[in-house]
């Protein structure tokens, strides 16, 4: 477009000497104007010369009076026109330790005036930029374009903007005052393009007169480009465009608006981040989740990512209830998921599995704001179980009634009389009830300019789906057994948490932060945990209450009553300090402590019941286990920007140096008692059965150097190196971890043709090393208490049980990732794609030692394997419809991953585990099994025994327990800013799960078809594909006009559904539930022993005022 003449050529008339001794305006204007144009870059020299720092504090004062104060406090010469209307504007400003030039610029920010240098180069003068250019054009004698780029308000100059003059190869970058210039411009209509990440690009037509100066003033409006987002790195906050790897940033608050969320794991699952897999252990309340980022690389060490809360390292190891889930989602501002070693190098030891950075909500200055929320869930499991069968018969010889499955018939141990069948879905036999959850959250924040606060408190309890079956109740009634309250109650989790954050600015360049988080959870399991399978798989497993009921309901039985309440109390203190001695220098420090106390008490008693004698308790057993753990974290970091003078126009170097220290103290005590008298339930009674104790103490430390190097504001290199030491591994060259990455904002290049389709396009690539440390126990030998009969006496001994391995090195992960970020269609479409290749070198494998060092159980770890992971991740977010009253957003995320043991040590054969094995050329979490090749009833007895099936000689590979393909889809529709509809789906395929849900007919009924009998001799593993309807919600936001009448700020009501349905070829309830906790990720899900995730419906109410 062409600017109107009136705006292109404005002339400022007056520059008046403000005090005696200064230059007369009339005589100096031409000279000053000439110098003004020519010396923008020289201003920096002036800053250097006049680097005396001043402080200005003004409230509702005129700009002119503030300028006079600046004159008084500095030794600069400043010229301006007293009485100028612009200078009479009232401002309030508070400046500390700034240069006089900065002060003047800041004071003039709200005006149309700018500051330049006088002709003699020794003073400053204030005038309109357009006047200046107009005047200069007549003098300079050559055409130029000198412009200013500001934000949309026109008051804040924007530096670093790329300005491209059509026909020229080298773009210009705006300086700190937002000014750019092109000299020797051919007169006529010229076009410039202005680009800045985070702002909408503009293309402007300008008329350049012969020997004139065009002075466009360009206002940029912000756009929602993803690359301008600020994300967290080990060295501090950076714009996404400056870092070479992908970081996913999540706002839990937004997710909680549409999805039932109770835990951090729920948020991560709902966020559907490519490359991040959230695996459930079971559908029980408090059940932990395994979070795997870009696959699994370690065979014997943890694959858990590092979790950092407000700068403090959090122990998020998998335990129940999950420590990670003790963090209240409502208290979280953002969660950032940093994927892979290339990104996580500088986060230190054990970061090779990725890092999850959690930032608590900080208060906002202003009046106190309250947010209240309440939600209530109802949930039930879904899916049906096949019929269960039970064979009854009589024992050979003594004619005793007993369970008589086919193998026993074949062995002539019994004669089968009948087969009973039950439908476990029948209410009489089902152990599954309704899950309920209530949760209350209160949040308040506010504060003044220098102190802000935030407080989040929540409490809730979840009643699990486990119930005692109706048939058991009937049976207890017959036996006259009155269960205790613990025995009656379903499993339950109560969890409360309180998070307080405080941010203080004691000075303009100092920020102090404090976060206090406390949580308490109480998890109660009971005997139902142990008997979950009675009505399903273990129904066929022996003489249980159920079978005795069918066999003879009056038969004397034993009831095992167990309870195991587990209480966890944890507290996290995180303190931070940020000191900014200069605009270009920042020092950050974090110190924090995480303390956790877990106490688990278990009590079990047997009760014998018979019709004649009734029920009688026997002595009981109890255990008291406690764990006290403290993790101390100290992190320091200093960053600066190098002052390179004129080079700063195209070169930006920001080095950082930092270090961290972490120490863990853990004390475990376990006491087991037996012979607890009837009527007593405490650990203080009974006889000591055994006691165990352990102290675990270790520390790690590391330091790093890192630098970001920016070229032309569009090419960035990120180079760093870190060294780690630990209690287990001393410093060595092997513990040095480098990283390097590059980010190229291609769309800011001059050759990139500006168009309406692609708004920004970036290519990036990074490579980095990171490590997971071996445990100290892997390095040093282990001794345990023992006893020997020596010289006629039992004598306590110290028994060596492991020789350790003093040669162990950390597992080293090397990851290369390459990817792109693309914003298109007016930033309405965002695409992010990444390919990551991760190689775990020196992977630790526990293997037997030679017998010349001890027995087989003296196992030790060795760095002998290599594991490769490959991931392709793609996410797409599109604002398909974006109108005033309508918004339709679609999300899509895709992950393709594989894993392979690329090398074992020379001559080392495969390592077999329960149902998995480690073998070159196959994934580390692969499932192996012997296949059923055929069967034949050789002896013609109509039964298939073990010797009548033909199995493959060795186990063969069936598949991987991790999904190779994962995709998620989301749709969100907002109408009139009041109604929000949201729904999410997740697809997983090509993974293997073992199901115990094969029919029991083949193992029980002698009349079962032979093929069913044959199948009972092999495990049932099969590749699975499934589509899960993860969530759906409808939310209504009360209009603000209504809220205004009642004094509210926001109010919403939401009906949400979670885990709504599952379409799968899996023969069972839920293949996504993984009850295995093994380090090698075996999925040994047992449908009979583990409840699936329930389908939840949630009513959510939020009120803010």
């Amino acid at each position, binding site marked *: 477009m062409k600017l109107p003449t009136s705006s292109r050529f404005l002339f400022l008339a007056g520059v008046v000497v403000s005090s005696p001794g200064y230059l007369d305006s009339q005589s100096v204007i031409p000279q000053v104007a000439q110098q003004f144009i020519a010396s923008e870059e020289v201003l920096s020299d002036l800053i250097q010369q006049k680097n005396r720092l001043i402080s200005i504090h003004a409230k509702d004062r005129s700009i002119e009076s503030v300028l006079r104060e600046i004159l008084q406090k500095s030794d600069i010469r400043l010229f301006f026109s007293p009485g100028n209307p612009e200078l009479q504007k009232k401002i309030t400003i508070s400046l500390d330790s700034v240069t006089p030039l900065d002060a003047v610029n800041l004071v003039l920010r709200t005006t149309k005036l700018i500051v330049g240098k006088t002709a003699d180069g020794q003073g400053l003068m204030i005038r309109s930029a357009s006047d200046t250019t107009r005047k200069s054009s007549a003098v300079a004698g050559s055409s130029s374009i000198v412009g200013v780029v500001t934000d949309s308000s026109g008051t804040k100059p924007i530096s670093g903007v790329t300005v491209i003059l059509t026909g020229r190869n080298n773009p210009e970058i705006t300086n700190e005052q937002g000014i750019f210039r092109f000299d020797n411009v051919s007169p006529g209509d010229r076009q410039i393009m202005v680009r800045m990440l985070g702002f909408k690009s503009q293309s402007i037509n300008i008329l350049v007169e012969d020997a004139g100066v065009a002075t466009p003033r360009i206002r940029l409006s912000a756009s929602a480009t993803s690359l301008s987002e600020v994300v967290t790195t080990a060295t501090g906050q950076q714009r996404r465009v400056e870092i070479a790897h992908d970081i996913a940033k999540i706002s839990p608050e937004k997710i909680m608006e549409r999805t039932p969320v109770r835990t951090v794991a729920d948020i991560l699952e709902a966020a559907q981040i490519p490359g991040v897999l959230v695996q459930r252990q079971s559908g029980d309340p408090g059940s932990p989740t395994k979070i795997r980022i870009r696959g699994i690389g370690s065979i014997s060490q943890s694959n858990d990512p590092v979790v950092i809360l407000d700068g403090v390292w959090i122990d998020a190891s998998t335990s129940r209830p999950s420590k990670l889930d003790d963090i209240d989602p409502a208290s979280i501002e953002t969660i950032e998921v940093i994927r892979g070693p290339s990104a996580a190098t500088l986060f230190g030891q054990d970061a090779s599995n990725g890092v999850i950075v959690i930032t608590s909500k900080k208060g906002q200055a202003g009046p106190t704001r309250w947010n209240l929320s309440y939600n209530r869930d109802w949930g039930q499991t879904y899916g049906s179980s096949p019929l269960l069968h039970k064979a009854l018969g009589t024992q050979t010889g003594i004619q005793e009634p007993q369970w008589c499955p086919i193998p026993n018939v074949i062995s002539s141990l019994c004669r089968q009389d009948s087969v009973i069948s039950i439908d476990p879905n029948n209410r009489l036999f089902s152990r599954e009830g309704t899950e309920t959850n209530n949760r209350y959250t209160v949040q308040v924040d506010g504060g003044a300019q220098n102190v802000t606060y935030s407080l989040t408190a929540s409490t809730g309890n979840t009643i699990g789906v486990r119930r005692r079956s109706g048939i058991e109740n009937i049976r207890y009634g017959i036996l006259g057994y009155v269960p205790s309250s613990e025995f009656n109650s379903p499993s339950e989790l109560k969890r409360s948490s309180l998070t307080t954050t405080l941010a203080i600015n004691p000075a303009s360049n100092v920020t102090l932060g404090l976060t206090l988080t406390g949580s308490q959870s109480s998890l109660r399991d009971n005997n139902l945990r142990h008997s979950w399978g009675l009505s399903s798989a273990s129904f066929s497993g022996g003489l249980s209450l159920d079978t005795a009921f069918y066999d003879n309901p009056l038969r004397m039985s034993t009831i095992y009553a167990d309870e195991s309440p587990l209480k966890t109390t944890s507290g996290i203190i995180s303190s931070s300090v940020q000191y900014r001695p200069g605009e270009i220098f920042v020092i950050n420090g974090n110190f924090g402590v995480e303390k956790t106390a877990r106490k688990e008490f278990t009590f079990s008693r047997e009760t014998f019941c018979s019709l004649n004698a009734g029920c009688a308790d026997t002595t009981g057993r109890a255990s008291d286990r406690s764990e006290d753990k403290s993790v101390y974290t100290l992190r320091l970091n200093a960053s600066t920007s190098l002052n390179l003078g004129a080079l700063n126009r195209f070169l930006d170097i920001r080095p950082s140096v930092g270090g961290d220290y972490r120490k863990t103290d853990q004390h475990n005590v376990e006491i087991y008692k037996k012979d607890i008298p009837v009527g007593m339930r405490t650990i203080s009674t009974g006889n000591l059965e055994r006691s165990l104790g352990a102290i675990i103490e270790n520390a790690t430390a590391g330091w790093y150097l890192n630098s970001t190097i920016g070229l032309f504001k569009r090419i960035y290199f990120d180079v760093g190196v870190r060294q780690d030491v630990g209690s287990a591994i001393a410093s060595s060259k092997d513990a040095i971890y480098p990283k390097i990455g590059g980010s190229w904002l291609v769309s800011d290049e001059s050759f990139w043709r500006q168009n309406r389709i692609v708004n920004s396009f970036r290519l990036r690539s990074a490579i980095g090393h990171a490590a997971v440390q071996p445990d100290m126990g892997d390095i040093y030998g282990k001794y345990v208490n023992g*006893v020997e009969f020596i010289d006629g006496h039992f004598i306590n001994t110290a*028994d060596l049980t492991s020789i350790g391995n003093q040669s162990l090195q950390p597992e080293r992960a090397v990851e290369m990732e390459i990817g792109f970020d693309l914003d298109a269609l007016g930033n309405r479409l965002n695409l992010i794609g990444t390919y990551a290749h991760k190689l775990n070198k020196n992977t630790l494998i526990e293997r037997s030692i030679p017998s010349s060092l001890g027995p087989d159980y003296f196992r030790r770890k060795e760095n002998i394997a290599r594991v490769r992971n490959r991931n392709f991740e793609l996410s797409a977010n599109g604002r398909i419809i974006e109108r005033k009253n309508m918004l339709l957003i679609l999300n899509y995320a895709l992950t393709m991953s594989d894993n392979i043991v690329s090398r074992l040590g020379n001559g080392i054969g495969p390592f077999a585990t329960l149902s998995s094995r480690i073998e070159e050329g196959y994934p580390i979490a692969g499932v192996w099994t012997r296949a059923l090749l055929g069967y034949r009833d050789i002896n013609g007895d109509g039964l298939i025994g073990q010797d009548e099936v033909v199995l493959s000689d060795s186990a063969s590979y069936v598949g991987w327990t991790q999904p190779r393909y994962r995709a998620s889809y989301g749709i969100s529709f907002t109408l009139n800013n009041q109604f929000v509809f949201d729904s999410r789906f997740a697809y997983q395929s090509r993974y293997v799960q073992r199901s115990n849900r094969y029919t029991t007919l083949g193992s029980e009924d002698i009349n079962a078809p032979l093929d069913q009998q044959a199948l009972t001799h092999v495990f049932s593993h099969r590749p699975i594909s499934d589509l899960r309807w993860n969530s759906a919600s409808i939310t209504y936001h009360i209009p603000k006009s209504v809220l205004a009448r009642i004094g509210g700020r926001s109010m919403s009501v939401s009906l949400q559904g979670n885990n709504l349905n599952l379409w799968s070829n899996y023969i069972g309830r839920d293949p996504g539930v993984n009850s295995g906790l093994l380090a090698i990720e075996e999925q040994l899900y047992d449908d009979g022993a583990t409840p699936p995730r329930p389908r939840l419906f949630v009513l959510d109410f939020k009120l803010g005022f």
Partner: protein
Amino acid sequence: MNNIAKARLYSWAILATLMLSGCSLDNIVKVDKPQTGNDIEHEYFDTREGSLALLYSVMGTFQEAVSTTSREVSYFTDELVSRSVNSSDGSLGDYSSDSRFEVVDWRGFSGVQLSSYPLLHTTRIKSSHARYFLKRQADNSLNYAISASYSLEGYAIAMLAENVCSGVPLSQAPYGQAAVYGRGLPTDSLFVIAVAKFDSAIAIEHDSLRFKTLAKIGKARALSSLGRYQEASDVVTDIGENEMFNLTYTEAVTPVTDGSTPQPLDAFWSMPQVYRFSEIINREGNNGMMWYSNASSVDPRVPVTVNQVNGSFSFPAVVRQTKFNSGNVVFKLAGWPHAKMVEAENLLNKADPNWIVPINDARRSIGLNDTIAPSSESQKIDLLFRERAFWFYGQGTRLSDMRRLVRQYGRAVSSVYPIGIYTRSREVFSYGDATVFIPTSAEFVENYNYDGCIHKNP
């Protein structure tokens, strides 16, 4: 200096500190109790009580190793064989590991594995750890324990040499140091190393006669296997009749921490006495001992019970040993009878006509009549080794003696080891031609420095 300059100074100071601390970061991360969940803190070992606890563990492991070795050696050397009697009482049956020196292809490693092989090595490794801490106590009253640690290590090495094919590796795992996987050593080298261990034990001054006896008999045992009879005899000359190092015959127990009563886990006595699977058979494989003639002529050194089996089939009487009749019976690992046998062997090899005197001295000590020295050299050797077999019955020496008969006395394998056929479960089998055990499979699989047996000759 303005703030920016100060900041730069600080940053460089931090950088310099971190760089310097790169050398000393190891100190930062040192912890007081580098524990990993062990029941026992390592500091405990650095006490008198702790270091002795380590030694007791060595003794326990050695007891278990020796008892297992004894059982196996006995099964394969006619001291105790398994004979299945298919009777209606069902109390007799096969002992599944009875390989009887058949040629066995065991996971590609031809031979029968010695199950106590890792236990004997564990004895070595633990001995070195115990000794490390015992010495650190600088307490002369612990000298006997240090001596014992050498002796037990020496015994473990000697027994490996006696029972396993040539080429046993002595892998090392010193306390707190990296393990070194050993290469196979010839049998004679093992005996030489064992002698050196015993020398170390003998050189330590202490006043415990039983531990001195342990060291001396052990050294003599190793020297005899090397054919250095005079040196062996010299070592044991001053051992008195009452000097003895007893060993509790196999008592492996469950950990004390659970408070339960320790239970015998595996013992020579358990198979015949508890499980009643095995019995003594005269002239096993033609070359075996005549352990008894009838119930009235049982040698007190190998007491037996003779029971007639009632069953569907007519079988000879079942003979069970009663020397080891409980899980914690004590036997004499090293003592005066051992010394007497060493003296006799030395005299025999010197063609001294008094060679029979030590043998009869020993016999008389338990009320046996003197035996008459035969005239032929071959018969003399037979008598000596018969006496050794009876004295050390069930104590894991017979296989070594059989090997020595071939190696040192020129006997043919076919005249020493069982030959021909034998019957088990009414099936007929042939004795194999193996003369030694081989290491357990983990040695073949896991030790990259191990190349297998150098040879399997006696």
